């Protein structure tokens, strides 16, 4: 486990948030309708999965600014899950390549 993964795990334990790894993870492009790509790049977040009315968003920090998402989608609950920052960056890169 590399350092940023450990960092993320430690942060998860500290904040009580969930943790997820994003190795080989290819985000569903449709989810960027919820989190626009520009916002994702700026806040370093990746939308992971939409279950019912809950959108899981992976982030390296516990407090990304996702107020835009909340204001646009008043009927969705945004759950932050912590992920290693390197893996988030690579996932974002994969999306950028795919576009």
């Amino acid at each position, binding site marked *: 486990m590399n350092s940023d993964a450990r960092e993320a795990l430690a942060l998860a334990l500290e904040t009580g948030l*969930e*943790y*997820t*790894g994003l*190795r080989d*993870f290819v*985000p*569903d492009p*449709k*989810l960027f*309708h*919820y989190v*626009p790509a520009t916002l994702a790049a700026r806040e370093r977040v990746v939308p*992971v*999965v*939409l279950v019912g*009315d809950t959108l*899981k968003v992976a982030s390296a920090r516990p407090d990304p600014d996702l107020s835009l998402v909340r204001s*646009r*989608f*008043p*009927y*969705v609950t945004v759950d932050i*899950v912590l992920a290693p920052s390197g893996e988030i960056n690579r996932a974002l890169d994969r999306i950028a390549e795919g576009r």
Partner: protein
Amino acid sequence: METRTVPEPSRSFYRRLAHHAGLEFVTLDRSRSDDPEFHQINPLAARLLSEQICRYHRMLPVSYANGVVTIATPDPFDQVAREVATALTGRSVRFVVTPDEDIEAALNETFRAMPHEQATEPVTDPTAHARIGDLLVARGLATDEQVRAALDEQARTGSRLGDILVHEGIVDEAELVAVLAEQFQLPLVDLSTVEPDPDALDLIPEPLARHLRVVPLAVDDTTLYLAVADALDDDTVAALREHTHLELRGCLATRNSIDELLQRLHGGEYVSVARSELLTRFPEDSANRVLSAGQAVVFGLLAVAFVACLVLWLKPTLIVAMALSSVFYLATSLYKFKLTYDALGHRYEVSVTDEEVAALDERDLPTYTILIPLYREASVVPRLVEGIEGLDYPKTKLDVRLLCEEDDDETVPAIEAMNLPPHFKLVVVPDAQPKTKPKACNYGLLQADGKYVVIYDAEDRPDPDQLKKIVIAFSKVEPSVTCIQAKLNYFNADQNLLTRWFAIEYSMHFDLLLPGLDAQDVPIPLGGTSNHFITDRLIELAAWDPFNVTEDADLGIRLHKAGYKTAMIDSTTLEEANSELNNWIRQRSRWIKGYIQTWLVHMRHPLRLLRQVGLKSWLSFQLTIGGTFIFLLNPIFWALTTLFFFTEWGFIRELFPSVVFYAAAFQLFVGNFVFMYMNVAGCVQRGYFDLAKYALLSPLYWGLMSLAAWKGFLQLFYAPFYWEKTIHGLDQGHGAPAPASPRTTAG
């Protein structure tokens, strides 16, 4: 924990996306048309944005209602797309969510219909955005080919490109204005909901606003905001500068919406102008009262004197009355005989050849206003539109105004539902008395765009080249000619005996009598339709008298009094002859009532009239318009003759001492012959040889006329302005239903 996305059916994803955002979800997939979420794509709305724009932003306008464009997209929060859509449609937009695959299929389907092949070099450059054609193509509103065809038309007619495309039905007027707004970098305004600021309205006088087609909307310390149909040009600015020195800012709106707003704001004033313009400016020429005070006194005294004479000297009084009547009869007969005899074999009409029409440069043609009064005749509108579309005149230069009464809940909705080409304008005349055709025409004239204006009835079938012929004719005649009257005749002449008589009478009236009057340079009582005017002069004369039920005949006299002339032209409009007896009597009673009204109006000051028009015209007026009284006298003479024939009552013999008897007998034998001869001659002149034999039965027709005359005369006492509306569409099997309302004195 590793989270993986599970492939999810796209449709449910987008439905959820819409739900989360509080937006509507729609399905565009036709195979799901039973689905409550299915949304039919309106192709006109879809063309509000170009294919390029739609594909790039993955959106498609699907409907347009209440000023809001609904745009379907899988990405409802694409801010760039939203801004682009708002700017390019010029309207507020509402995004609805649709699955990605639906938008893809809908884009392909919508834009596949548009031809792409370009066999020749394109005439437009969609990337340039400088010319209107480029912009229209860039937006997918028109194809290069359509613009090319429109440019050809423009070269031929000189009309503006945008107008041509609108009249061809390629571009919507609203779409064109949106593109113009882009071209001129002007804001768009939707006038249907606008309430202009009264302070702004006060700055520009209403007639000027109407003339320039602008509506002041708002004003602040420095600027006056105006709704305009076109970018403000120097002339418009100069005219506005006379009234305000504020900075002027135009907001574009469609021409029709400006007209509608002006009507909404000023309908009351327009009606009062339409009703009272003549009465206000030339009260002595208005038939709003049947008799002037002077006339009432004179006629009263005459009646008293006549009765007194009858009591005192019964026989001599009657002899004098018979003698005067006979002289009047004789003079009328001889005069009409002379007119028709002169006209027979001559062509007094302005002649315009087919070659001249063919050589006409359409770029020089002016805008032509056609006024068509309608009342409760929705069924004739489709044929009417077809007829107007058949006229050989550039559509961009036609201004057709369908004049309906406000309470006509039949025709107005029918026209509104028809989605007519933009040169047809529905004008709803606010409800006000008198509810007559001339009032509707005056109202329609207020917004007329044309240099020339003509009235057609709904069922009229003018010669297709009539408008062009008139334009040429106006360039040939002397400058004082203000009206050119086309000939009227009937398309259902052979329907029954009544229509045959009617056609015979019209042939005589329009082919002989009116050209004869024209040649004599005396007042011509105009026919009810197909009289073409120079618009400005007509307005100067206060147009038609809304209180006169033969406003056209009256206008002919007023034109002459004002020193203007009327010419005849050899072009015919076919109408529907009244084929049903009661209906015919109603119509004819109105005409005769109107002629008497006209005679009374202009005889309020007989000497002044004499000074104004000269002796010849004065006498002609007495014999043509005043000649109407013959129909009232006829039954008396017929009764006397018949009575004498069967009883040989000596008293009757004594009423006709030798001189009077010779005059009366001459009238009986020669006069009747003359009128019959004129009728036959009219048929010959028009080429209706088959009808000539029916002219021999004319005396029966005259009997009907006298019946109608008495009905009309008596109505003058109790309902002078009542408009005996003719019922139309009685010409079974002859194609066009509708009304007939030209008028004539006739033999």
